């Protein structure tokens, strides 16, 4: 309970600082929001009136408190471009990014679990070397290059998959999955490489344990020893790595969604930055940071449930 309360307290402080950083970032962005809203032809009087109406003449801390109050009530302001509510825009985009994230995560698991297990159980063989080369290349591969190569090979050269676009799963499930396949591979490759490294080293460590030797000694099949006993314990640090990778995932989503024209939160951020739609930038960046903080919190809790020793030490983050 103390562990949980301490974690909640720290999370509250971090979330508060996240809001301060996001607010400060947008305040520092060049350009006058009133001018962006009214256009270059606006008269100085109209600009002054709008600035007053938007509260831009108030001291910064007043503007921050007002903005934070709005955020706490779910009001993230209005887009300068199309005047719709930022929250509504985000609610429209979040499911798309969520679909991409979930599919990427599944792809990274589908690749990394067998490759990592094979590398660890066949240490020093050609399988291990191939697994290691994959892991090493995967973490060095720039996602935008991988995305472009995938479009060239699977969409242009082979013609097997559509190059870009998005269809909601509710509209046409098969087409939606096909359209999301290349972006998901683009986004998931780096994580699958990281996880392969992690699963290999974690499994190698566990395979040295006495209970694994006992398992082999009492005549259990290799599959049952590896998946039934070793893998369960080796997966704990892997969960932490997966959670920590969420920040990289969101960053990668900006790239993957831009390359493949997927209308998610990542593409929304780059489009709003380029069109100087600051309320949308603010809302989308805040959403991503909140999601990361919440996920880290959940991972901390899951980790402490899986490994009760964490509670005794009070758990990191010093």
């Amino acid at each position, binding site marked *: 309970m103390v562990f949980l309360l301490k974690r909640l307290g*720290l999370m509250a*402080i*971090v979330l508060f*600082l*996240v809001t*301060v*950083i996001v607010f400060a*970032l947008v305040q*520092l*962005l*060049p350009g006058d929001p009133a001018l962006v809203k009214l256009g270059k032809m606006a008269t100085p009087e109209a600009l002054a009136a709008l600035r007053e109406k938007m509260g831009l003449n108030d001291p910064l801390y007043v503007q921050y408190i007002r903005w934070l109050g709005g955020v706490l009530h779910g009001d993230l302001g209005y887009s300068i471009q199309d005047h719709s509510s930022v929250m509504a825009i985000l609610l429209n985009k979040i499911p798309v990014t969520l679909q991409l994230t979930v599919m990427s995560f599944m792809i990274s698991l589908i690749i990394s679990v067998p490759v990592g297990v094979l590398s660890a159980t066949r240490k020093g063989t050609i399988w291990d*070397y191939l697994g*290691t080369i994959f*892991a*090493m*290349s995967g*973490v*060095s*591969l*720039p*996602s*935008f*290059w991988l995305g*472009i*190569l995938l*479009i*060239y090979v699977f969409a*242009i050269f082979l013609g097997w998959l559509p190059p870009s676009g998005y269809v909601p799963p509710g509209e046409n499930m098969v087409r939606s999955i096909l359209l999301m396949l290349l972006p998901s591979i683009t986004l998931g490759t780096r994580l699958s490489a990281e996880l392969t*490294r992690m699963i290999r080293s974690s499994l190698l460590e566990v395979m040295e344990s006495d209970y694994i030797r006992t398992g082999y000694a009492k005549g259990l099949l290799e599959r049952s020893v590896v998946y039934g006993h070793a893998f369960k314990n080796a997966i704990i640090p892997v969960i932490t790595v997966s959670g920590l990778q969420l*920040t*990289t*995932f*969101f*960053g*990668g989503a*900006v*790239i993957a969604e*831009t*390359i493949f024209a997927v209308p998610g939160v990542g593409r929304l*951020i*780059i489009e709003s*930055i*380029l069109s100087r739609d600051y309320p949308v*930038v603010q809302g989308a*960046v805040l959403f*991503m*940071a909140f999601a*990361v*903080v919440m996920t*880290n919190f959940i991972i901390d809790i899951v980790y402490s449930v899986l490994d009760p020793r964490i509670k005794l030490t009070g758990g990191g*983050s*010093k």
Partner: protein
Amino acid sequence: MAQVQPNPVKPVAGKNPRARMWGEMIQRLWQNKLAVAGGVFILVLIIMAVFADAIAPYNPIKPNYGEVLVPPSADHWFGTDNLGRDIFSRVVYGAQVSLKAGLISVGIALAIGVPIGLFSGYYRGLWDEVLIMRFTDAMLAFPPLVLSLSLAAVLGAGLGNAMIAIGLVFTPNYIRLMRGEVLSKRENDYIEAARSSGLKDRRIMLFHILPNSMAPILVQATLNVAGAIIAEASLSYLGLGTQPPTPSWGSMLSAAQGYLAEAPWFAIFPGLFIFLAVMGINIFGDGIRDMLDPKLK
């Protein structure tokens, strides 16, 4: 990560223990063939960047509309781009941008992060625990690319600002790393001895704690150079990094995407060099980590 198991390191002859220690470490690095391969590629990259004028056969900026999208040939090893410019020459000059971005961004992060981490870990207190640490937690909650994008938007598009943005994004890692190192070192006997002999805090920090904490910082810095190269290429790809016509691997890929069907070479070579540069630096960084502390393997 390095896969080549080094042979037992032979003791290096010599009386000076510091020189002997360095000799043994370099020997350990030399025995790690993967790290050597990474080091060789980094060397190639440096040569490309420094001697770009001599290596590049064509002007990387001047358009040549008579030779638009020419496939790779003896005249143009990597083909030409949509403006008829030689891609090999642009890739060679692109190495300058990437190396500069990698080194300067990490330099900025080191220059800000290491002193803050050093002071924060040495003096501790409420401002360290509540302000500095929670602030770094908050910074780390932002996806690095999203934060660099937002900072680059604040500062304005361009290579210089992209480097500052990437440097600021990497800074919290160094604050945390340095602080952790200081916390583990400050209770050691030699620090206690320095304190009781009347040395001032500043001297203890600069001449005793800092040099003994540099190993993990060096490893992190090497690996971050690779991260900064990818980050700069990503920002340039998205239009907020190096601006045309300056050749940057990221902006070349961005331009190439529109010509994938008719000129795939346009996208292949800049991306391949980003990949090789990042992989070379990553395996060299792993090698340095193993060299400094073989127990970490």
